[in-house]
């Protein structure tokens, strides 16, 4: 029941936020904060109920911590079926954390139609948390599509100069690729129906479907494209720089921090377990795409002068590691993927918050028009430096652990590709340091006096910085939570192959 509440609370909170605007335009953001607090408490309660201990990070006794199953459309055996394991738990925690950050970064930036803004923000979180929990494929698709629409509104209403183009591109890319997934889902269910005689969209039942290799390949491709567009990986990444650049800060935080992660989660949870053999055949291509994403996006990032566009390309680059790691399909690489997902969620969100804060102050996103900020706004600049280091993969910070584990895992599978991908460790410092150099150092460009980070910004960014350090120094906590889930996924595919 708590699982259902986890989804419902966000939706109800969103509706309340929308209507509370009528009382006072500042109330919606408080409603959002309250909603997220309730959500966090619920998740904590679910976790303690499942493990029996209050200590965060206690090893999980079983793979699936909780389950909520309710018949929805009996005609097709569709259930409102949610389930929580270690992986979903971590991603939900990230979702809630970045929900707070999105609200925090929108606090003063959004000054028109606040009610509708926070409605969309929470509605988007509803869709994302639904995706992380759904184990009925119809429900998965339902939430998958549901999270696109509010993000579209966030970009198209509160975005920057070229917002409508960016929002449209985002919507069409994700929606059309989603339809490919729907087609695959329906075909999979019909194949299962022809074998068992019943309609079922249940993930656990569909795992046992026997599919001929050619059909499995096409079905896998449908899922793969949908998730890779969202991830995104080359060649499906072109929507991302536009969407990120034009989105308001809160939207960018959600987009980079958690929405991209739904793609990674989908690959991990659905593509490989449902189609182990087809994925195995396809793995070299997917890994090559991952490597290309890593390197190409890193180089593209270097060529950008728009700071949000630069960060967007670094996201593509980091997500390339995720793709590489997932299709390596061993525990080490998968653990790396989980850490990368979390670490990148935190660092990219923080960088976008900083970019938003800078834009609010300087009214530009062009790093050529920045410079010398270190003397003007030292606190914000120091935080920028930390997250730039995180992004370039400095040891002791979270991203390093993730990327290192991915590379070690991938090395066992494909030495050459891993060696080439490792070049990113050279490319990423180049773009990160260039960003730092151009914006923070040199002569102070803007004439007007600038205000340094206020308490709200400082606290939000400091929390994220501490989490990055914690992930970098002691990732064991996270690994303990995710391990049972990942082992379970790997177990399933091993069973299938024998």
């Amino acid at each position, binding site marked *: 029941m708590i699982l259902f509440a986890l989804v419902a609370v966000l939706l109800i909170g969103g509706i309340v936020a929308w209507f509370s605007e009528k009382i006072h335009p500042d109330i919606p953001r408080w409603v959002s904060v309250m909603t997220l607090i309730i959500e966090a408490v619920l998740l904590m309660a679910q976790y303690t109920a499942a493990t029996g201990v209050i200590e965060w990070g206690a090893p999980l006794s079983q793979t699936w911590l909780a389950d909520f199953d309710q018949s929805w459309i009996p005609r097709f055996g569709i259930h409102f079926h949610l389930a929580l394991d270690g992986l979903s738990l971590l991603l939900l925690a990230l979702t809630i954390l970045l929900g707070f950050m999105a609200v925090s970064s929108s606090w003063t930036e959004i000054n028109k139609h606040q009610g509708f803004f926070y409605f969309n923000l929470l509605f988007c979180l509803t869709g994302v948390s639904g995706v992380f929990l759904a184990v009925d494929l119809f429900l998965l698709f339902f939430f998958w599509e549901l999270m696109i629409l509010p993000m*579209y509104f966030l970009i198209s209403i509160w975005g920057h100069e070229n917002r409508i183009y960016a929002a449209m591109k985002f919507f069409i890319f994700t929606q059309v690729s989603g339809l490919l997934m729907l087609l695959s889902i329906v075909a999979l269910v019909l194949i299962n129906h022809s074998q068992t005689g019943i309609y079922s969209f249940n993930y656990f039942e569909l795992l046992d479907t026997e599919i001929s290799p050619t059909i499995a390949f096409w079905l896998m491709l449908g899922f793969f494209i949908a998730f890779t567009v969202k991830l995104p990986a080359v060649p499906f990444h072109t929507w991302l720089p536009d969407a990120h650049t034009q989105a308001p800060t809160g939207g960018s935080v959600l987009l980079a921090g958690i929405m991209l992660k739904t793609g990674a989660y989908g690959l991990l949870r659905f593509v490989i377990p449902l189609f182990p053999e087809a994925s195995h055949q396809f793995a070299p291509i997917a890994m090559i795409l991952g490597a290309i994403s890593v390197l190409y996006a890193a180089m593209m990032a270097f060529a950008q002068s728009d700071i949000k566009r630069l960060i967007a390309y670094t996201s593509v680059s980091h997500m390339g590691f995720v793709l590489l790691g997932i299709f390596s399909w061993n525990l080490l690489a998968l653990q790396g993927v989980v850490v990368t997902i979390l670490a990148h969620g935190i660092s990219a969100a923080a960088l976008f918050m900083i970019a938003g804060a800078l834009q609010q102050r300087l009214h530009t996103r062009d790093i050529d028009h920045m410079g010398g900020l270190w003397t003007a706004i030292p606190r914000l600049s120091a935080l920028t430096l930390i997250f730039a280091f995180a992004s370039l993969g400095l040891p002791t910070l979270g991203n390093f652990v993730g990327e290192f584990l991915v590379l070690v895992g991938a090395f066992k599978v494909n030495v050459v590709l891993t060696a080439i991908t490792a070049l990113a460790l050279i490319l990423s410092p180049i773009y990160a340091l260039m960003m730092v150099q151009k914006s923070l150092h040199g002569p102070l460009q803007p004439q007007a006096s600038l205000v340094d980070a206020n308490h709200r910004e400082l606290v939000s960014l400091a929390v994220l910085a501490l989490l990055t350090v914690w992930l970098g120094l002691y990732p064991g906590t996270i690994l303990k939570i995710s391990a049972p889930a990942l082992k379970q996924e790997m177990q399933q595919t091993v069973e299938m192959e024998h």
Partner: protein
Amino acid sequence: MNISQIQALAPIITLSGVIIIVLLSIAIKRNFVFSCTITAGGILMTLVALVCAWQNAPMQTTLLIRIDHYALSFMALLLLAGLAVLGFCYDYFKTRKGQNEELLVLLLTALLGASVLIASTHFASFLMGLEILSISLFVLIAYPSNQRHPLEAAIKYLILSGVSSAFLLLGMAFIYAQCGELGFTGIGHFIASQSAMNIMILSGIIFIMAGVGFKLSLVPFHLWTADVYQGAPAPITAFIATVSKGAVFVLLLRFFISADSFIYSQLVNIFSIVAVLTILIGNLLALLQTHVKRLLAYSAIGHIGYLLVAFIAMGSIAPALAVESASFYLVAYFITTIGAFGVISVLSTPQSEADELSVYRGLFWRQPVLAAVFTLMLLSLAGIPLTVGFIGKFYIFTSGAAGRLWGLLAAVIVGSGLGLYYYLRVIVMMTRNAEKSAVESKIYNGTWISTATLSVLSILLLWFGIYPDFLVNTIQSVSYTLP
């Protein structure tokens, strides 16, 4: 004819009676409000008669008409659509000077024609129903007869409709020449008894499809659609888009199932090409429109293309699933199309239709409720979750995948992608800043009937989108009764 047959025919008899009563009341005294009330009461009475007829169904009453659950449920759908359109017509025409009462008579005769059409099992009643429907529509389109656009639209519709009827008759003649039968089942028996392909029958069916294709505005018979949609008064456009197309499609399903025409595999190929063209051309042309009614006209063409996918799937899967899919999609299409044109109708007056895209600029901040309803309708047309259109699209995918129509489904996906673009354009326009709005913010008072209708439609849209169980079960039980 015995008493139970008359009972089964009760809805049609009631509807005919209501028409005469409304005519007489107009002859005695012209009063728009009063006539509207009688009309609405008459439609409700017909719905009650439907419930009475339900127990006697299925029943073959005369050679021409078969009253079964399939026909009765779709009659109910058409009547409810008629009721909704009546509500919009009331608000739209009440301020118009001149004689508006005959509009209601024509609305009822169109409904009568549509009801006969969907219950017909014989070419004679098929043609009769179709012509009653069409002739009413000509006059309805041209009702504001002192204006240019409606008249032009009506003339276009009249001529093309005449041509399409000629095709239809020719097709019927071909088939009759071969098998000497005009009843659908008789034709079915003849086709089944033939071992080789009969080229005359095949051409007859193709001619009939051409005639029907005009009504459904399938590509390449779609040229009239945008002009007529744009020219007709908004509530009447809603009526054409739903009742007229829906009734024809329902009849088409019945004809193909009764006559078992999918024995001819060539038909599947021809229809597949038509469906792909309809989906792609409808959606592509919609991209270019700056007038909302034209945009919806082309999008409606695309939607009929999606419906055809379920229809074509009937050739290779159990007909019940295909009929179920098509019926669900049709219901979804009815709700959303009436809702979308309803919003346009609320914003329009007989003097100026709210057709230009710029009228909708900033509507979200001026008229939040109306804009929200319109957004819901457009999202449902685009097939976004939480709306009934999503479940409809799911059904199309299911029947298409079951029939292994991968090429057609690819066209559906491309069409949906294109569709998103122009639906979103309208939605974006509504969220733009209101300050720059070219049009003075009108005060839309006294449209409570339209508002109530739109609210009901929105609730249905969300209800069937979130919890479609009730509708799914109803449609499923009905579609299994079709022979």
